């Protein structure tokens, strides 16, 4: 904590500027954007089979429907676009191709077989029904086990074992240390497949402007620049002729950090027909085709000393990647996310892992808030609870013995933690939650008022703000990694900030305006943030992976510094002082110590834009703007402790979260209210994953949970009040000292809630190794345990 920061807009709970239009119903989500006259609507014919050869497609009946403009199959589209190809030609990777509309085979229920073009979405639905496809059903594989079984059907002909990506590493001397340790523990954890289910599903409008030969592409995305580049590459239209706009986006959570086949098709048809095309997804289609997440299995082997000190960890990780690798994150994202996060807040030197991404006849999976980390910490913290229990230690005590508390620290994966507050966070969380007292009063039976009650503690880390080098190392070439900001003090003295990212509700407009305001000595309300439009904002990566504050913040700080220096030089010339003596605050540049010798920023802007009697000083360029990029050298690590209190009803198996405490450290906090909001929302995502959410494929590969009646999202009734505190340990690596925060809540909530249930049911000898803990499953475990005990 070497650096101290001046007070100013940063750190204030500034109310969000995003809210006013959203509260007035003036938001503009994709379906709210008025498309041009004569826009045509797309419908996608989805395969009803998980795995089937396509024998024939009869489009004639559909084409005859009034209002149907065209019906196209994969063959009609194959010349319009390149296949989606993402993974690099590097060891461990298998290069796969995906056709936006498949030609030979359907590989999951929802794979696209044909596209209809109609005058309105109703007719499009009619036409989709009228397309007659003849399939030859093939045996489908759905689960990891089935896919890896010898002789399993192949998803892609060119991948013999269905393993798309594989990575195996071991630290030097691992075997000896592992063998030598006195205690060994092995458990296998599984997390269910879940859906992002953003409240706004996907959608896009592709508008080809015939006169200019340009494509304007509105899409509900987190990564407009990546989408633009991908469209350019796959459709062969110069990226200078493509404008991608992410308007208001109704939730993304990682799922919208991808380019989807529907987007490619809409854009390709707009170019082909020189017209406008729109598609807005419905909820069933979202469940079927928007990337799923976290269908993972972790086999964890721990070697531990007699004192409970972790000596070595071995992990064997399997990720069900679904039918295809998705653009731009590819097949390795989730598989590598496990080992990358696994060292977490604990100090150990020996680590071995093998991780594999396995193809199945299911919807592709990808990033969802936290990527693999919630599953990883479900497994890691599950092991900590298990080991503590086996060794007769309090779970907190075991954690405390293993926590990294001295910084900087480099973990077994080589990741450097510059600063952190693992111990402090834990202490404060225990204090706030009354952990010691709770344990002291806790009955051994865990039964209180007819329910099993338990407490779970999770200490977690969150890797945030990764830059280009990290993505290149990971083989994610399609993710630039850097972000950029173009800041302008406009002629009026007000400020515009164009940031390369695109928000989905995080409050970018507010937080960025605070940073800009702080750095330029103005008030946030004088700053307008522009984002989400490739035409106006500089190139960059986008918003995902808890990178917003770090990447955008860093770019803003760098750009504003350039401007501030220029302001000082111009002010120095006006005030006949030295630039080194000039300070900038409250909308003025003034001579340090002589606040009356000052010149307003608006006057400096007038001079810079040549709208003043005074000419810009000799040698100075016109304008008052700067663009800067920021590419952090490594990941930055946030840390947190979550404490959850639950009650399990033995009669129904229902779990109630009774209390929840978080102490969190994401470095320097820009807007505490917004950070709180991020943590709250993420905890609810974690709570859903632990308690209720699961996408269920039957054995034939049919998805049985395709509505919000079948797929259970948490409601206000499910969420406890959350008691939260921030610790601020600024990063020494990042500009501004920021660390990321978007995903941490899920990462902590999953192990804390699972741990609390584990604690509540510990007298029954139940092990919590699988999610979700839905009532039937919990009840079945309780009944099985009781039955075992009575036997």
């Amino acid at each position: 904590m070497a650096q101290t920061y001046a007070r100013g807009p940063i750190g204030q709970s500034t109310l969000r500027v995003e809210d006013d239009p959203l509260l007035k119903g003036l938001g503009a989500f994709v379906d709210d954007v008025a498309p041009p006259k004569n826009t045509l609507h797309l419908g996608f014919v989805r395969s009803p089979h998980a795995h089937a050869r396509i024998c024939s497609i009869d489009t004639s009946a559909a084409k005859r429907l009034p209002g149907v403009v065209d019906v196209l199959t994969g063959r009609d589209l194959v010349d319009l676009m390149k296949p989606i190809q993402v993974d690099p030609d590097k060891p461990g990777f298998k290069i796969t191709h995906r056709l936006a509309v498949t030609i030979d085979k359907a590989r999951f229920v929802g794979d696209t077989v044909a596209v209809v073009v109609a005058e309105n979405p109703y007719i499009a639905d009619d036409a989709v029904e009228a397309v007659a496809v003849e399939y030859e059903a093939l045996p489908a594989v759905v689960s990891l086990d089935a896919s890896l079984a010898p002789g399993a059907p192949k998803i892609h002909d060119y991948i013999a074992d269905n393993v798309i990506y594989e990575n195996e590493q071991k630290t030097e001397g691992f075997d000896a240390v592992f063998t030598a340790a006195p205690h060994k523990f092995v458990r296998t954890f599984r997390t269910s497949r879940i859906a992002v289910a953003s409240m706004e599903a996907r959608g896009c409008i592709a508008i080809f402007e015939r006169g200019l030969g340009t494509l304007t592409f509105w899409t509900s995305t987190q990564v407009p620049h990546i989408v633009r580049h991908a469209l350019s590459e796959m459709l062969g239209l110069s990226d200078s002729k493509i404008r991608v706009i992410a308007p208001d986006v109704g939730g993304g959570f990682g799922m919208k950090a991808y380019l989807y086949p529907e987007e490619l098709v809409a854009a390709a048809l707009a170019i082909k027909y020189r017209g406008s095309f729109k598609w807005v997804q419905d909820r069933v289609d979202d469940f079927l085709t928007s990337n799923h997440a976290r269908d993972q299995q972790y086999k964890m082997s721990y070697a531990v000393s007699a004192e409970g000190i972790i000596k070595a960890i071995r992990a064997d990780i399997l990720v069900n990647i679904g039918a295809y690798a998705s653009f731009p994150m590819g097949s390795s994202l989730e598989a590598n996310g496990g080992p990358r996060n696994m060292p977490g807040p604990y100090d150990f030197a020996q680590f071995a892992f093998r991780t594999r991404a396995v193809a199945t006849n299911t919807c592709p999976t990808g990033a969802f808030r936290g990527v693999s980390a919630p599953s990883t910490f479900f497994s890691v913290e599950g092991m900590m609870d298990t080991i503590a229990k086996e060794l007769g230690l309090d779970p907190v005590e075991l954690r405390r013995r293993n926590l990294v508390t001295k910084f900087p620290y480099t973990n077994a994966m080589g990741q450097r933690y510059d600063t952190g507050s693992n111990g402090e966070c834990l202490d404060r969380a225990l204090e706030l939650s009354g952990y010691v007292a709770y344990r002291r009063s806790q009955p051994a039976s865990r039964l209180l008022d007819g329910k099993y009650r338990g407490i779970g503690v999770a200490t977690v880390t969150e890797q945030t703000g990764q830059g280009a080098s990290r993505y290149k190392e990971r083989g994610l070439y399609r993710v630039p990694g850097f972000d950029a900001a173009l800041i302008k003090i406009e002629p009026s003295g007000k400020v515009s900030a164009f940031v390369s990212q695109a928000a989905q509700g995080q409050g970018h407009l507010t937080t960025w305006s605070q940073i800009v305001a702080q750095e330029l000595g103005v008030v946030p309300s004088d700053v307008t943030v522009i984002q989400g439009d490739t035409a106006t904002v500089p190139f960059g990566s986008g918003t995902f992976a808890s990178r917003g504050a770090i990447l955008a913040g860093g770019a803003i700080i760098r750009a504003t510094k350039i401007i501030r220096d220029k302001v000082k030089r111009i002010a120095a010339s006006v005030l006949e002082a030295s630039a080194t003596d000039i300070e900038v605050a409250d909308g003025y540049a003034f001579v340090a110590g002589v606040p009356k010798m000052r010149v307003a920023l608006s006057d400096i802007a007038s001079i810079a834009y040549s709208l003043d009697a005074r000419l810009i000083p000799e040698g100075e360029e016109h304008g008052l703007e700067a663009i800067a990029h920021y590419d952090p050298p490594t990941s930055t690590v946030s840390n947190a402790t979550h404490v959850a209190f639950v009650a399990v009803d033995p009669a129904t198996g229902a779990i109630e979260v009774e209390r929840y405490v978080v102490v969190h450290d994401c470095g320097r906090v820009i807007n505490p209210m917004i950070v709180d909001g991020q943590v709250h929302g993420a905890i609810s995502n974690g709570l859903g994953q632990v308690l209720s959410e699961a996408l269920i494929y039957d054995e034939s590969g049919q998805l049985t949970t395709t509505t919000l009646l079948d797929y259970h999202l948490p409601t206000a009734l499910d969420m406890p009040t959350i008691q939260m505190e921030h610790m601020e340990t600024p990063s020494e690596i990042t500009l501004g000292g920021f660390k990321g925060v978007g995903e941490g809540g899920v990462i902590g909530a999953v192990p804390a809630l699972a741990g609390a249930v584990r604690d509540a049911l510990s007298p029954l000898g139940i092990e919590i190794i699988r999610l979700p803990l839905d009532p039937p499953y919990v009840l079945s475990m309780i009944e099985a345990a009781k039955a075992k005990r009575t036997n």
Partner: protein
Amino acid sequence: MAETRSSGYIGRAVPRLEDSRLLRGLGRYVDDLAAPPGTLHLAFLRSPHAHARIGSIRTAAAAAIPGVHVIATAADLAGLFTALRADYERPGFNRSEWYSIAVDRARYAGEIVAVAVADSPYVAEDVLELIEVEYAPLPAVVTVADAVKPGVASLHPNIGNVFFQGSFKSPGFDAAFAAAPVIVRETFTGSRIASAPMEPRGGLAVYDPGRDDLTYHATTQMPHIMRTAIAESFGWSESQIRIIAPDIGGGFGPKAYIYPEDILSIALARKLERPVKWFCDRMEDLQTTLQARDHRFDGELALDRQGIIQALRVRIEVNAGAYAGYPFGSSIEAAGGAVMMPGPYRLKYYAYEARSIATNVCPAGAYRGVSQPTAFFVMEGLLDRAAAKLGLDPAEIRLRNILHADEFPYTNAIGIRYDIGSYEECLKRALALGDYAGYRSRQTPTRFVEGKYRGVGIACFTEHTGQGASRYRDRGIRRMPGYDSAVVKVLPGGKAAAYVSQTEIGQGSITTCAQIVADRLGLDINDVTIVEGDTSLTPHGSGTGASRGAVAAGGAVLRAADKVREKMLRIAGDFLEASPKDIELNDGYAHVAGAPQLRVAIAEIAAVAHAAHDRPPPKGHGFGLEATDHYDPPHVYITNATHLAWVAVDPATGLVSVERYLVVHDCGRVINPLVVEGQIHGAVAQGLGQALMERIVHGADGQQQTVHFLDYLLPTALDLPPIEIAHLETPSPETAGGFKGVGEGGVIGALPALANAVADALKSFNANINRLPLAPDHVLDLIDQHRDRRVTAA
């Protein structure tokens, strides 16, 4: 100028990139834009009186029409915006304001008194007819002479109807003038004219109440300046305002201004929270779009007996109309003419007095060439008179006075520096190409050939181009930044885009900028996208006007492209393990000079720069392949030309026909000869219109009588001769790229060349050509007068 090898696009006659969509009917002019749902249409009730006090306004009957949304007067809009004010506050300028809707008093016929907002433009016009306004007409001042009579009421508080006055006199002027043995003097007047772009003015204001921001599509040449004006008038941040100039159907200067209709439509869009559209019809355009060239110049030229110019004195009076327009203010015509008058001749002693006078007619302002056409009508007219007096040929007197190549850089009598030029060469070349000597030798004293009087006219002139910030500050014009800017990007896929602060209004700037980018970056021109005319997409700068595009915007594009080029060379050097200075960019590849097989695709260089490649960008060079640069031309850059016109005058009808027209021109390094020639053709046509037929006529009451194209005559294909053009290229050693401007020169030369040609044709009548247009009745009068009007001797 660092000379590096280029792929040769600069200088090539590339057919324009703009054309394809325009030829297919796919242009998007303001009225072509798909109006957003809920768009309302705005129409303007205009004062029928040139000067009147406004009494009560009754709207009840109008408000009863189905489809009307709002009828508003000044009172209804009070507080929504403030008046626009463009001038400096410094000696010579008298402060005045222009409020967008008449409060209490209308100062010209056409000033907006009330507005109607309705479902359709048809209904909006229906509404206007039923608004009843009580006017108390006031005496109107229509001419400069009337406006400055003692006792005439001031149109604006405390200005005495003088918007601006300025003067200058070279040290030693009086003595030099007094000593000269030969003096010619004449009073020249031009008629007030209209720019009459084929697309009238219009706007579409879309206010987003959710974001509290405004997108305004407007027929403007200067979107950035408009944005600042609107921000100022409404008290907003520029961040909240996006001005888009879509395709513009001709600008020519008057579309560089902010108009009351702009402000009112924005105010109403915001008030009603609905998109508001307006589109002037031709009658409104002819009556309310800024007019020009209502000039009276009294010139006196003093010479020695050899015809060598000794001194020049001019008194300039400009009828500026009712208001000083934003951004150029009240001085542009009066002071501009005075400053640009000295021209291509050796002139040591110069004096001027200039003033802009307020009257009850439509405001006047910049129109292609501003005052230069009049200035050279005067200068070249005086020279011809002096030649006649001295018995010299008009060509000879020019040859004796014109600046020679070895005299550059030359600083003229008012301190303007001419960097370089081909003044004498241009004249000689024109005389040779036109077989001037041969023509003269065949000419008879009567000039009468086959039923018509035929003559030739010469005009040599300078054109002030590419003025930068310091020039505008010197001239007292504060709202014109003077510099321009460009952002050049090579995108991840290896194609380029440039965002330029100027606006395409037909001059081909998309193509010329693309040529510069393609040239510097070694790309195919079809892989270069140019974006202009959108304040959200383009960097801040001045816009299009005053022959500054190639110099200021072209310079900015060139400089920004060269920055990107440098970075590309570094990455390529890294790839090819060669020194960046040995690398050339061509045809989409970077290759080692002399070893074309040692190459890397620009697309790959772009991928590296955008972290979309497994190869990292060279250390320390950062991501992206883009650069912003500005160009503020340090001085003014002088383009020179000679025009020769051959005319025939029908003595029965007075109709003048132009039989041949020759231009020899030097605008420095030519980017695209096709485009340069197009600029000259069009400008000559406008000069021809002004010289022969165009005139706005006001009645004594200030009513404008020429309100449509049946009365306000534009030249047609039958009036224009083929125009022969020869280019001389003397690149400026000072501007980026060596470019000079060219947009206005054609008008400047056409006026004096045609006037002098008619004078030559009517030589036997001693016709005094000192007033425009040379319309048939005027010409016939000149012939009829048939009396000896010898040039007055001193």
